[in-house]
């Protein structure tokens, strides 16, 4: 058996990032993701990397912008309020087409809210919290192994598509520990960074910018981004299915909620209920086709989220027209995590 580490999700992200070759971390403290800067401040200096605790989340993401512009893998991490502060710069980087990794170990909100797990930031992550209607790649791990694997994947896809990437976790997947099997970074072929700033040397000047004032230029850039998003939808959606083939109720949930839901689905199956689980792994691009396929037969969907209904909209937009989508939400906050038993109860209601 391979060596298994036993680490928190936050640490798994760091291990994944370092394995992926990321040597530039810029961040600012905020619960529940402090393990990330703490880990990086300890490990990066040992491998000639750069760790800077910035003066703010805004400074941190702008440092990422600068480091990423040189073609280096760079990342930041924060949690909900801190991520909100990064919206302007993320919009810039989306337009500049700069690869980078932003980790949101989200907490409960809105406002200062609390430090417990929640999925209140789905809209912000997936529907362009910043101005201008861009998108970023959003991956939602639901295990410690995925925190590691998807971090590596995020860096690769981010470079291939020249798009900022986000790991959207929460206090559960961030602070939970599980065994992790580390493995080397996959040998993905990556495009040459012909855009990276390096000092022009004897070459052509390179510019990284988001201002487009020439007639039609900005519109063209928007359509260019749009087609990139389309390519992501065509090629990079990822999801997990569990017992969906024979389901007459399709439960869907992402991230930590999906973990709880999965146990509920298993319990329901033990009771003989025909239930399956569809867990999107990429939130953007959203695996719409998986929902369309699954709802060819199964006409009832129960969406479970740790909020008052956000992914719900994407689910509704993805299912076949005659499918009914129901929602069960436990938004935010101390003492509000649903239990498998509770979700089982919901499943039972919709199966009867």
């Amino acid at each position, binding site marked *: 058996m391979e060596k298994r580490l036993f680490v928190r999700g936050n640490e798994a992200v760091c291990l994944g990032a370092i394995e992926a070759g990321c040597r530039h971390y810029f961040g600012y403290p905020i619960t529940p993701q402090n393990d990330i800067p703490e880990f990086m401040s300890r490990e990066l200096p040992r491998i000639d990397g750069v760790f800077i605790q910035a003066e703010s989340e*805004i400074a941190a993401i*702008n440092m990422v912008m*600068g480091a990423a*512009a040189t073609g280096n893998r760079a990342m930041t991490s924060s949690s909900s309020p801190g991520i909100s502060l990064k919206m302007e710069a993320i919009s810039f980087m989306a337009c500049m087409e700069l690869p980078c990794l932003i980790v949101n170990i989200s907490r409960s909100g809105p406002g200062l809210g609390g430090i417990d797990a929640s999925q209140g930031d789905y809209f912000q992550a997936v529907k362009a919290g910043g101005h201008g209607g861009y998108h970023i790649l959003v991956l939602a791990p639901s295990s410690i192994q995925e925190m590691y694997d998807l971090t590596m994947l995020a860096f690769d896809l981010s470079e291939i598509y020249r798009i900022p990437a986000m790991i959207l976790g929460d206090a559960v997947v961030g602070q939970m520990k599980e065994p992790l099997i580390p493995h080397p970074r996959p040998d993905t072929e990556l495009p040459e960074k012909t855009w990276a700033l*390096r000092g022009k040397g004897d070459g052509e000047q390179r*510019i*990284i910018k988001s201002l487009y004032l020439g007639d039609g230029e900005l519109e063209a850039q928007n359509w260019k981004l749009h087609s990139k998003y389309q390519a992501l939808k065509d090629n990079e959606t990822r999801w997990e299915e569990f017992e969906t083939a024979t389901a007459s109720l399709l439960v869907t949930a992402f991230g930590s909620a999906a973990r709880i839901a999965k146990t509920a689905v298993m319990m329901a199956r033990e009771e003989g209920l025909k239930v399956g689980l569809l867990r999107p792994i990429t939130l953007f691009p959203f695996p719409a086709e998986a929902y369309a396929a699954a709802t060819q037969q199964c006409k009832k969907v129960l969406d479970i989220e740790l909020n008052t209904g956000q992914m719900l909209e994407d689910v509704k937009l993805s299912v076949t027209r005659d499918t009914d989508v129901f929602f069960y939400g436990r938004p935010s906050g101390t003492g509000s995590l649903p239990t498998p038993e509770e979700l089982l109860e919901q499943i039972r209601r919709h199966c009867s």
Partner: protein
Amino acid sequence: MQQVFKRPLSLKDVQTHFCPGCHHGTVHRMVAKALDEYDLQKRTIGVASIGCSVFLYSYFDIDVIESPHGRAPAVATGVKRAKPDSFVFTYQGDGDLAAIGTGEIIHAANRGENISVIFVNNTTYGMTGGQMAPTTLLGQRTSTSPYGRSLENEGAPIRVTELLTNLEGVSFAARVAVNNAKNLMDAKKQIKKAFRYQVEKKGFSFVEVLAACPTNWGMTPIKANERVGTELSDYFKLGVFKNVANL
């Protein structure tokens, strides 16, 4: 006969969008000249800010990254830390650096980031149409201080260079102007010095340039140029305020 004054290599041979008499043009040339003199063009990464100087990449023949308003020092930090062998400067206006970018400039300076900052103080938000800036003089009428800036309501104009000299990470801090012969020569010298300090890895170097914005001051270029030497220089004293090499 020899040509004794030429356009610097690092400056593209193109028309700028600056207004007649705008000192941004002069400062651009000086910065380009300093890059030329230390042979930095090929390893320079310029960091543009948001303001009338946003088109830095259109005028300088160097690699450039644009940064969100006020964040140039953070972007420059990322660039420099990721590529320590590059020469990195930011070029920022007073709205950009002294208002929204206060946190970024203070902390980059305090960390002693090995970058150079060119700070063009024209006492107004030029690009957006002449609003009050943190450096707007008392009594100065702008489009958002139509009755003149007042000490009571808006506070006194901030002297950024003096403020930064309090921070240990700053290796060099000077205030110059480009309004007359003497100041022009001095400005060239200080900008060069600031750049040399970065090359020598002495840490954060900073040059504030008092500049005219004839358009938003509602003055002719000549009057605006004069105001730099009078009202502006009266309040914002010219000089070298910090120089670690002198210690």
